[in-house]
């Protein structure tokens, strides 16, 4: 028994408290964005949020200051999908390509892919959605219902602005 105690106490500092999960301190990474990435685009002035929409009903809001794009599904999409019961989230630090699946939304027995509008690296996922997937219904484009934050790859900002729809175009698209 004594040997067990010794074994346990030796391991103690390393062992995390049971049932207490650590969450990644992702925002720190944002500050660590290479300087070069911050002023990528000539067309995008600093301190601007660029919001764009895809034909698959995702939105991305790109912060020109930090180089981070926040991605979620649109209000139109959540209305169509109905009550969200589960969100599959990607791994932090995984690389994504534009049009790759970065997760899935399950609602009323349907699984819908979430596609990434840009290439980049996942730096944060919205863990709260594990507990409350319905936030996607309640606040799809606000502070609570976002799904992932991606450090947007080089050259992607220009593509984003050229190829994706702005709000006006998206509203027209959904009314077609």
């Amino acid at each position, binding site marked *: 028994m004594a040997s067990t105690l010794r074994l*346990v106490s030796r391991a103690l500092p390393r062992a995390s408290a049971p049932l207490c999960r650590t969450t990644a301190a992702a925002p720190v990474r944002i500050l660590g964005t290479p300087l070069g990435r911050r002023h990528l685009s000539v067309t995008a002035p600093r301190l601007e949020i660029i919001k764009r929409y895809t034909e698959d009903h995702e939105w991305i809001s790109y912060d020109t200051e930090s180089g981070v794009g926040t991605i979620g599904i649109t209000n139109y999409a959540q209305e169509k999908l109905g009550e969200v019961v589960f969100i599959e989230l990607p791994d932090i630090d995984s690389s994504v390509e534009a049009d790759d699946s970065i997760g899935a939304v399950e609602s009323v027995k349907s699984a819908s892919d979430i596609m990434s509008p840009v290439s980049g690296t996942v730096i944060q996922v919205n863990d709260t959605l594990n507990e409350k997937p319905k936030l996607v219904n309640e606040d799809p484009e606000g502070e609570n219902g976002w799904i992932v934050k991606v450090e947007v790859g080089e050259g992607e900002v220009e593509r984003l602005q050229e190829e994706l729809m702005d709000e006006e175009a998206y509203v027209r698209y959904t009314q077609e």
Partner: protein
Amino acid sequence: MSPSRGLPRLLNLTTTRRTYTTTTTPKTPIELLRLSPNRLHIYRSTSHNPFFNLSAEDYLLRHSPPTSTILFTYTNRPSIILGRNQNIWSEVNIPLLHSKEYEDVTLVRRRSGGGTVYHDLGNLCWSVIMPRKVFDRDFYANVVVRALHSLGVTTATINDRHDIILRQKGSGGKERDLKVSGSAYKIIRERSYHHATLLLDSKLSSIKSLLRSPLKEFITTKGVESVRSEVSNIGVDKELLVGKIEEEFLAANGWKGEEEESVSRVTLDEEETVRVRDYIREGMVELQSQKWIYSQTPEFTLSIPHSKPLPELPGLPGFQPVLPIHSKFTLLSTTSTLQNIQLSTSPDPSFSFVQSQESHIRLLNTRFEGPPIRQKLSEINSLPEDVKNDFGRWLEVAVGEWKGAEGKVDLWRNQDGGKTLRARAAERNERIGSRREVVGEEATE
């Protein structure tokens, strides 16, 4: 529109009708699907392999012309089909599934959402692949209801869960709903499908027993839980019904007859289809991998209360261990690997803390699988022998072994040692160099 569109027209102008003789074998219908000009397609599968039928369905979803609508019918051999985001151990009676009596039942996780269903040869699966713009959860269920009505099953209707039920008038005017069909859906960019079961002559006793898990009451899951319903068979002839569903499908799509619009009618043979379509073969490999079947299980907690006899398991008659009072027994699992473990039996807080810590260290990162859990449990020195033995034995059977394809499935090399479609696609996307390394590690874990 695509710039290449004008090319065939141009060729038509310059070349007059010519007959070609060719030595290559004619293309199978599934190879021609992508370029088919037809709006409506009717597919039937002769295979009873659930992995093939689900992968073929996925192929039809992703590789059919964007505006086409496809009806696909198939029947699977006895199998349990879980929804994409479900927990195996809270949905399925694993010890019973692994018993001699049910050894021919396959465990499958599908790509669409929803709850767990049981398939066998007395069940008909129907599936409609359609453009996302016209996706509707009830439209094609109504088509099938009309087909059932035309065969005299007049009590068939749809409930608010989009399932087909038989609404029976019981004694005293009380209505009783019996579920005969369960629906699930998958939505991708431009396309979507609605697929469903239809109980014609299934072994209903298997549904009742296999879909009742002894671990369910102890599991708290973040995933999707099934809604239990009373089920019934419809008892009509399968061939006849498939014909009627096809008729109603065409009518619902405004089809006026073969002289006005031709419809593709295709019968899929497993061997031939797998030979010509790598996508389907690789889809089957992925569906059979333990990574998909087991590790896709969303985060969950297994928590066993003290002082309460555990349920009797098939294979362990009369064996109902009880955890001593003051015990704590909680396992947290993500991607079916233990991440947080809290096992203790002692009333003394400091010793129970030691037990908790030791169990955590011993079991951390163990797969949520019967034999490894039993093995690791037995190594915990601070837990009493009898508790370790009894619980190890009970858990080993209750959680069971991981079946299906063996642990290592290489998603990057096909059977001939060549690159898979996935590997080739990744190579095309070499723009971000780190990508291959990240995904590559996954494949060899």
